[in-house]
C-alpha cells in the first residue's frame, strides 16, 4: 500500500504537518465537545444576555443567555460533519462522471462535459444560494445543494486523467486479457486516480465548510441547529458588531478559518503527491 509513502511525504512538508495537526485537533474537539460542554444547546438563561466572557462563561453569552462556548462546541461538530459529508458526496459524483465520460467517450462524454461546462460557468455559491432558497431551509438541503453543485471541477480533472490512463500499456494489457469495461474501470483505472481524488476531496472539504457557513449565515440552513455559520447569523442579526460584542463574532469565524485552513494546507501538501515536480522539501 502506498498510503505510508503518502503519509511520509505529507509529514515531511511543513504545511502538511500543520494541516494534519489542525484537522486532528478540530476532529477531537468536535468528537468530544458536546460531552465536555458545560451546557446544552437549548439551556438558555444560564447567564445575562450578551454577557462578556468570564471564568464561568469563557466565551460569554448570546442574546437569550446561552453559553457561547457550549454553542461553539456543538456547532463545530455539525459544521465539520456537513463539510465532510458534502465533500465526500461531491467527490463521488465527480469521480463517477469523470470515469464514465472519460472511459466511454462518445455522446455520453459530450453531454456530461457540456453539463460540467454549464455548471462551471456560473458562480458555485450563488447557484447554491438560489437552489437552497427554492428547496427551503434545512440542513439536509444544505448538504444536498453543496454536493450536487460542487462536483464539476472534480469530474473534469478525473476525466482528463482517465483519458490518458485509458491509453496506457497496463490497461491495454488488461483489455488483451479480455477484461470487461467494468473490471478495467474498477481495477485498473479508478485506483490510479485515487491520489488525485484525495487531493481534490481535501480541497472540497474547505469549499464545503465555507459554503455551509455562507448558506447558514444567509438563513438557508436550519436555525435550530447551531453551526459556525448559524451562530454568526444571529450575531449579525442581533447587532453584536455595532455593540462591540467581539466574543460573539470572533470565535465562530476562527473555527471556520481553522477548519478551512487545515484543508487548504493539506491540499497544498497533497499537491506534492499528485505533482512530483514540486517535491523539493
Amino acid at each position: 500500500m502506498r498510503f505510508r509513502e503518502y503519509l511520509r511525504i505529507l509529514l515531511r512538508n511543513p504545511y502538511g504537518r500543520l494541516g494534519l495537526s489542525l484537522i486532528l485537533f478540530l476532529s477531537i474537539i468536535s468528537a468530544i465537545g458536546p460531552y465536555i460542554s458545560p451546557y446544552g444547546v437549548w439551556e438558555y438563561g444560564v447567564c445575562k444576555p450578551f454577557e462578556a466572557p468570564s471564568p464561568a462563561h469563557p466565551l460569554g453569552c448570546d442574546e437569550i443567555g446561552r453559553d457561547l462556548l457550549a454553542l461553539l462546541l456543538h456547532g463545530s461538530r455539525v459544521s465539520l460533519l456537513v463539510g465532510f459529508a458534502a465533500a465526500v458526496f461531491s467527490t463521488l459524483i465527480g469521480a463517477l462522471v469523470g470515469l464514465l465520460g472519460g472511459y466511454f467517450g462518445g455522446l455520453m462524454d459530450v453531454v456530461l462535459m457540456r453539463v460540467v461546462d454549464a455548471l462551471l460557468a456560473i458562480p458555485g455559491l450563488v447557484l447554491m444560494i438560489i437552489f437552497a432558497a427554492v428547496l427551503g431551509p434545512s440542513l439536509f438541503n444544505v448538504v444536498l445543494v453543496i454536493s450536487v453543485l460542487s462536483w464539476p471541477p472534480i469530474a473534469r480533472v478525473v476525466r482528463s486523467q482517465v483519458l490518458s490512463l485509458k491509453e496506457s500499456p497496463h490497461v491495454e494489457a488488461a483489455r488483451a486479457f479480455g477484461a470487461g469495461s467494468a473490471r478495467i474501470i474498477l481495477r485498473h483505472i479508478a485506483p490510479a486516480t485515487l491520489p488525485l481524488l484525495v487531493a481534490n476531496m481535501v480541497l472540497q472539504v474547505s469549499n464545503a465548510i465555507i459554503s455551509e457557513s455562507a448558506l447558514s449565515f444567509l438563513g438557508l440552513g436550519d436555525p435550530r441547529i447551531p453551526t459556525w455559520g448559524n451562530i454568526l447569523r444571529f450575531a449579525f442579526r442581533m447587532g453584536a458588531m455595532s455593540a462591540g460584542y467581539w466574543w460573539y463574532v470572533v470565535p465562530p469565524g476562527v473555527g471556520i478559518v481553522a477548519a478551512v485552513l487545515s484543508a487548504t494546507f493539506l491540499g497544498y501538501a497533497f499537491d506534492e503527491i499528485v505533482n512530483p515536480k514540486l517535491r523539493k522539501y
Partner: protein
Amino acid sequence: MGMPRYAALRAAQTAISFFILVAIAFFLFRVMPGDPTAFLLESTRIHPETRLLLKQRLGLDRPLVEQFFIYIKNLFIGELGYSLYYGRPVTELIFSRRMVNTLVLVGTSTAAAIGIGLLLALTSARRYGSKVDSALTTFSMVTYSMPTFWLGMILIMVFAVRLRWFPVGGTVTAIKTHSNALEYLADYLWHMVLPFTVLTLIEIGYNYLIVRNTMVSLLQEDFVYLARAKGLSEGDVMRKHVFRAALPPFATIVGLQIAGIFTGAVMTETIFSWEGLGRLLYEAVSTRDYPLIQGIFMLILAAFLITNYVVDLLYAALDPRVRLR
C-alpha cells in the same frame, strides 16, 4: 483551426450551456414549486372551473415541453415577471442603480486584487523558499480561507464601530443632502472603502497562489536555464521570462474568477448594506421572491456565459495553441 471557426465552435458550446442552464432554471422555478394555481385553491376556495380557466389563461394546461419554449421566448423578449415583494417588474429592479453599484464595487476590487496579487507573486517567486515567500504564502492561505462575511464583520467591528473611521454600511449617507456631485462622490467612496477592502483581500490570496505556483513550477524549465545562461539578472529572468510565461494560464483563471467575485459580492453587499445586485439577491432569497431570484439568476447566467466566451476568444487570440486542441 482558424480564429473564425474557433469562435463559432465556442459560440455553439456557449449556446448549449445556456440551454442546459435555462432547463435547470425552468425545472427549478417552474416545475418544482408545483402548479402555481394550487395555492389559490387552498386559500380562496376557488371554483374548479375558474381554476381551469385560469390555467388556460396562464398557459399551464399546455404540455410541459411547450411551456418550456414559451419560457425561453419570454426570456428573450425580457419578460421576467413581477417581483412578489416589490410589486414592480423584475427587469426594472435589476437594470437600475443597483447594477451600477455592483459593477463599481466588483470592478475596482477585481482590478486591485489582480494587480496586487501579481505583484506579490512576482516578489515571492524571486525569493522562492525565503522567509518573505513563506510569509506571503501563509498570509494568502489565511485570507483565502476566510469567509467573506466574517472578514466584513470583523472590519466593521474594528474600523466602523470602534475606530469610527468608516461608516457601518450603506452606499451613501442616508440623511445627508449632497450639495454637489463631488461631495456625493466623496461620500460614496468613503462608504466603499470597507466593502472594497474585504473583496480585494479575499481575492488577492487566490491570484497570488495561482501565479506564484505556476511561476515556481516553471523555474525548472529549459527556457529559464537558457535565460540564466545568457547572463540575465535574476530580476530580468523573473520579469521577462518566467512571469510572462505564467500569465496565459492566469488569464483563464481570471475569467472563471469573475464568477467567484460575484459570490463575494453577495456576502459583502449583504454585510455592508451596499445597494447592489448581491444584496438584492439576498433580499429576494429572504422573502422567497421567486420571480426576482429567477431574474437575477438569468442575469448572472447571461453575464457569465458572455464573459467566459469573450475571455476564451481573447485567450485563443493570445495563445494560438489553444485553438489546436
